[in-house]
């Protein structure tokens, strides 16, 4: 009816905050390096955004939806500071991957209301997340830097100089958009098995079954009585002392238990334990099956022979005698 008014309303009645900015990673923020900006869920907006927002009737905390117009991917987040250069918004790295944008692309920033969350299901992207001892404490401190969690996000958190990626699989309460606010809320967190977990378990089992090395090599008693040191002592007693090189440095003679064959040592070291102590952590020798013996037999008598014809060429090398006190027999010279 009143087209002028309509236009006026359209341009001046900024009832919502809905603008386009060029997005850049937080690493490009001028000033000192602030690495923990990258592992949060809050962006850096320009000061003009603050003015606009303060004039509007918005609910606090300030939460935004970020849209990539070309692909339609969306995510959500909060704002940390208003120190960005004009026309620019600085996002954490994971947010840029989630939106699928390159530095310098345009994204749409819309102020929204998001309801408080009660439940979230996370999936670690690698099984090193399982090595953390206290997941609750780690998440509590990391999620302090997040304002929202959107379904489909793969957020990155930093703990102990290690980056852990977590995918948000599910959020509650559901509102159609799949996003919850995590500002000052108590969340129930559920974990899905890390990506690649089942394959790893299978692999571990296969390894155990194949190698058949009992874990007792690293057993607690073996460590306590320094079994490997004793074994090394035995082998050093028997054959070699410590060698020395001409340049003055000695040779290193460290060999792990599994490699030293205790049965071959001439004078094994004594196991001087008090009475009543039983130790079972000896190197494991698997029982010989009949199948193995059959294989051995088939290979036993097929050696490489040598003939007299080549004896002249290898005169120098044929000086190597084949056994203790055997007469010159060219056929038995090892090739």
């Amino acid at each position, binding site marked *: 009816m009143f087209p002028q008014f309509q236009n006026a309303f359209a341009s001046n009645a900024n009832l919502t905050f809905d603008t386009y900015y060029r997005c850049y990673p937080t690493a490009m923020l001028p000033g000192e390096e602030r690495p923990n900006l990258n592992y949060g869920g809050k962006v850096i907006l320009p000061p003009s955004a603050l003015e606009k927002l303060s004039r509007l009737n918005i609910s606090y905390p300030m939460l935004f939806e970020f849209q990539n117009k070309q692909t339609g991917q969306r995510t959500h987040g909060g704002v940390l500071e208003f120190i960005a250069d004009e026309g620019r918004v600085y996002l954490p790295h994971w947010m840029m991957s989630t939106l699928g944008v390159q530095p310098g692309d345009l994204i749409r920033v819309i102020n929204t209301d998001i309801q408080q969350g009660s439940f979230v299901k996370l999936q670690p992207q690698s099984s090193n997340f399982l090595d953390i001892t206290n997941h609750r404490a780690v998440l509590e401190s990391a999620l302090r830097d997040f304002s929202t969690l959107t379904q489909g996000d793969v957020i990155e958190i930093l703990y102990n100089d290690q980056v852990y990626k977590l995918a948000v699989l599910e959020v509650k309460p559901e509102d159609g958009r799949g996003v919850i606010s995590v500002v000052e809320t108590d969340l129930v967190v559920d974990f899905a098995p890390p990506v690649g977990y089942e394959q790893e378990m299978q692999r571990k*089992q296969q390894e155990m079954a194949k190698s058949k090395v009992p874990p007792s090599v690293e057993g607690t008693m073996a460590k306590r009585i320094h079994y490997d040191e004793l074994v090394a002592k035995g082998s050093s007693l028997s054959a070699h002392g410590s060698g020395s090189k001409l340049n003055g440095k000695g040779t290193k003679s460290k060999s792990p238990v599994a490699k030293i064959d*205790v*049965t071959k040592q001439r004078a*094994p070291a004594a196991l001087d334990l008090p*009475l009543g*102590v*039983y130790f079972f952590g*000896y190197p494991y020798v698997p029982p010989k099956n009949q199948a193995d013996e059959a294989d051995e037999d088939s290979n036993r008598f097929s050696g490489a022979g040598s003939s007299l014809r080549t004896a002249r060429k290898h005169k120098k090398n044929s000086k190597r005698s084949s056994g203790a006190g055997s007469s010159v027999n060219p056929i038995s010279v090892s090739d």
Partner: protein
Amino acid sequence: MILRFSSKRGLFRVSVEPSDSVKRVIEKIQEFFGNSVPVKAIYLSKQPSKEKVPCTSFEGKTVGDAGFKHGDMYSVTVDEDVVQAAAPSTAKIETKNVERKDTISQNNTSAPTQVQQDDVDNELEKERGLIQRPRSVFCHHGDKGMCDYCSPLEAYDPKYLEEQKIKHLSFHAYLRKLNATTNKLNSSQSFIHPLEEPDYRVKKHCPSGHLPWPAGVCTKCQPSAITLTQQSFRMVDHVEFSSSQVINSFLDSWRQTGQQRIGYMYGRYQKYENVLLGIKAVVELIIDPAQVSESDGVTLQNPWDREAEVDKLAAACGLRRVGIIFTDLVDDGSGKGTVLCKRHAGSYFLSSLETYNSAYFQSQTPNPSKWSKSGHFGSKFVTCVLSGNEKGEIEVMAYQVSNTAVALLQADLIKPTVDPDRMMVCLEEPGRYVPDVMYSEVNEYGKAVSVNAKPAFPVSFLLVTLTHGFPENPRPMFKSTVSPLAANFDAGDETFRLRQLAKLFEPSALDNGSLSNFDVLLHIQQMGILDDTDMRVLASFASDPSHEHSAELNARPNWQTLLAILQSSL
């Protein structure tokens, strides 16, 4: 005046005054016989064939009054049965410090040593122990006749053993073998002990008169060269577990924690039917002493504070410590419940450390035997290992160590090594004389040569294998191996404990054998209301809750006291 006495052991003279009491004469006679002869066993007579007068009839009189005159010759006889009954059992099962004589003693007893042997030994000695043979192809006689080919063989016949592939004789068969050679040829007067325990220590107080070692040594007191051989006999042939439950509940602790466990086996020795003159150890109970368990080892804690009570209750139940059992199980990771086979012909059976420990335990539980000069020979203590067999199943393997091993341990000549299959010979040191140790081996040319055992030798020379099994009709002494009392029983206060125990004393529960559990009996003993005889009656009731046992138990006043106390706590 001088009185002369002649006896089986020889002549001796006693010099007394007529006014002396006869007691002095009797004392002198006792001295001659080695002090272990009670007065009532000594008989005197003027001539060996004439009537014998017991010494007790002379008590209180003086020598003159009793009718002894100067120069009289009396023949002294000692009543063996009375002596044996009165002789204290010199080798109780619980003695911890058995001193072995290391002097060259002039112990000229010409009779079997007076010791109280185990019941099973006495039982087997009465048997003739012959292998019956049926009529064979070579027999050319009738049904009722017997010839060389079908006459019964002695238990130790070498051809029979080879045929049956028996590697170790049973102890009594071995004894018969030795006795046949040493004592048949000799007259009944002199008796040579067939069994002798090896002793590899330097003998102190050598009669040659030189200073003891290390100042001086001669061939008489130094230990001779030792040749290690497989022991041809074994003291116990078989280990029987009264029910598979006994082993299963022992394994539970490994199943739950994955850590190894050790336990003492309590039971008794009985005749073993499947082996001629064989002995089996029947295990009724496995008790875990104080220990520190790890996944690759286990350490016994000394002291174990419940040891005295457990032994006392076991004795009341008629049980004694027959051996030790420990687990060596490592799951093979396949998820099927199979374990690694660590002990087999290619690796080791009993590691040198375990052999050393078992030798120690065997030295602490000597087996009393009247056929040995020292009064004991070997030990009936058994060592069992729970480990994986070739198929990966959990199996029991039972062993004993040879008497040579025990002697080597006592002389401090051996030490376990990091190689489980070899035992090392200790080095010569001041205070330790190490004789030559050799063993026989077939070398690469197929000849049997004597090899020096130093620095280390295979442990298999010190081991003896035993069979094991479970009875077809298990009749275990204890109905339940898992305690019916709550796990926090010891933590509760007096009223809580009494109430828990009272639940087991309800008539319906009693008839079903609620007391048939060692742990329950132990707690009852700890209460201190029942004394030793009561406990024995209770134990027989617990294993067999029949009417006569319950009647016997109800007749005992302490039992009624116990029931009243428990009743009042409800």
